[in-house]
């Protein structure tokens, strides 16, 4: 049996700054995962991934990442993706700095 589809968001790195960004419902890229489009359907995920990859003039390395729904909106489930929303743990650099 194929594995049940688990919710996702589409993420990438910004072309110029290189930081983590997420694909929104309006086909824009946000620096806040909570603004990402929360994708719960596999076929829709495939289409949105193609759309997100269609224009890579501003982004690099587009992929689907596991996500869950929190009070604020989509949130990471895996620690790697959680770090991407914050920054490194040894300095207050990256997103947590702002």
């Amino acid at each position, binding site marked *: 049996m194929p594995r049940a589809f688990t919710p996702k968001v589409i993420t990438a*790195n910004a*072309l*110029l*700054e*290189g*930081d*983590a960004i997420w694909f929104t419902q309006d086909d824009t890229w946000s620096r806040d995962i909570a603004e990402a489009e929360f994708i719960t359907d596999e076929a829709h995920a495939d289409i949105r991934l193609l759309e997100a990859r269609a224009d*890579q*003039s501003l*982004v*690099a*390395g587009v992929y689907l990442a596991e996500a869950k729904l929190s009070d604020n909106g989509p949130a990471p*489930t*895996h*620690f*790697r993706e959680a*770090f*991407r929303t914050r*920054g*490194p*743990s*040894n*300095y207050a*650099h*990256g*997103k947590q700095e702002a």
Partner: protein
Amino acid sequence: MYVYNDFDEAFVRERVAQFRGQVARRIDGSLTEDEFKPLRLMNGLYLQLHAYMLRVAVPYGTLNSAQMTQLAHLADTYDKGYGHFTTRQNIQYNWPDLRDVPDMLSDLADVGMHAIQTSGNTIRNVTADHFAGAAKGEIEDPRPVAELLRQWSTDHPEFQSLPRKFKIAVTGCEADRAVIRAHDIGLRVVRNGEGEIGYEVIVGGGLGRTPMVGKVLRTFLPKADLLPYCEAIVSVYNLLGRRDNKYKARIKITLHENGLEKIQDLVESRFEQIAPLFGGVDQELLAEIEHSFAAPAFVSKSVDGYEAARLANPAFRSWSDTNLAEHRADGYAIVSISIKKHGATPGDATSDQMRVMAELAARFGHDELRISHEQNVILPHVHKSDLPEIYAALRAADLATANIGLISDIIACPGMDYCALATARSIPVAQQIATRFDELKLEHDVGPLKIKISGCINACGHHHVGHIGILGLDRAGVENYQITLGGDGTQTTTIGERAGPGFGADDIVPAIERLVLGYLDLRSDSSETFLQAYRRLGAEPFKNILYPEKAQKNAA
């Protein structure tokens, strides 16, 4: 030190100009990411978790003060005021903006530096003993040969798309501080029965997923044959190395699958073929290079001030006991500056610290600095009479930690705090272990102990050759740390043995504490190091300390 000639200068400038054009074309959309990625990697530019990362080569770990000052300038101008020194004697900048990278490369070219071949399936930055040219007992400074190899391998048309990356390390001593047996090619300067200088050639070492200790391909290779012989090795690998499976592509696997004898035969016949084509031009070049590595003019003066300072200042005494190594010239010492202050990120130096170290090198150290694979900075040629002043300056810059070779002198790769390939973090584990043993005030009592931490199986943190190795893994979405014991990265290279099941992020530091305190009970006396005790007693008693419940069950 080697200074770029017109050819080097023109070549590096041209590469900067090419990359400037490539970046512009990526930004205006004429290049896709797929097209741009290999181009940026050729110039040392990675894309990591939070930002780009620029990896700058420090060839054979040698810098002059102007270069170190320029590294500080890059940190201030284009990054967040610091840089990270790596186990490959490189420096990495963690926060550059894509638009700034061509300027960074141009600023590097101003001081004869570049980021070429710090990535990709090419021959990477050649690493060397960080005490080269200064160590007591060295047969010959290995850096001229390392520079020759750098020039030969840079943009070598035949070796730009090898099956996988290729790393060469050199040492001029019996004592191995360059982990040469864990490199694709390891070279050690030796003398034969006639007193002639040559090389022991070791091939097929490597860490990573399948750790292997290199094997001797030639016990004595005449010095003049070095370059054609290395070219023969790499070209045999280029043909034979597997391209179907990334995990089986390194020369260690080629050697393992084909056997030493077959590789030896192929290398020897290829060598016979190509050696005549070199026609001695490599030797002319080497002679020129050797000239630029001539030893500084050492002087003889009194060391009374140094001895007096040792008596008067216990902190200075402790630092000089731990951080100095024997120099080949009388009255001189090799200074290791620890970039491992307790609780700080291993290998990170601020721009201010870089400038202080550069200034000390210029004033007291014949203008030379080294980066060690253990992520510290070395002043290789210092007269002992200058040490009190050097120590005072280091102290003022927060660089006087007296912990070289001790438990808090930890190698840690960037791990999941930066690296896109990581499976867990390594920096916080290093920070916590160092902080904990500083609180316990035990590290001088524990003595020589090398802890090495990697954030994934690629083993950039050399965990396999740590006396205690720690490997960070992702176990069902949680960070988990596996311990290996008894590894050794010196002339007696040994791959550490896995101790047992991994520990969670909250349990790894207590486990290390238990292990080290347990060793204090196990050692025969205070002169028996952790590694010696492990070799005498075997793994069992150490495993029992790490897993007390299992030990109890077995005893019941």
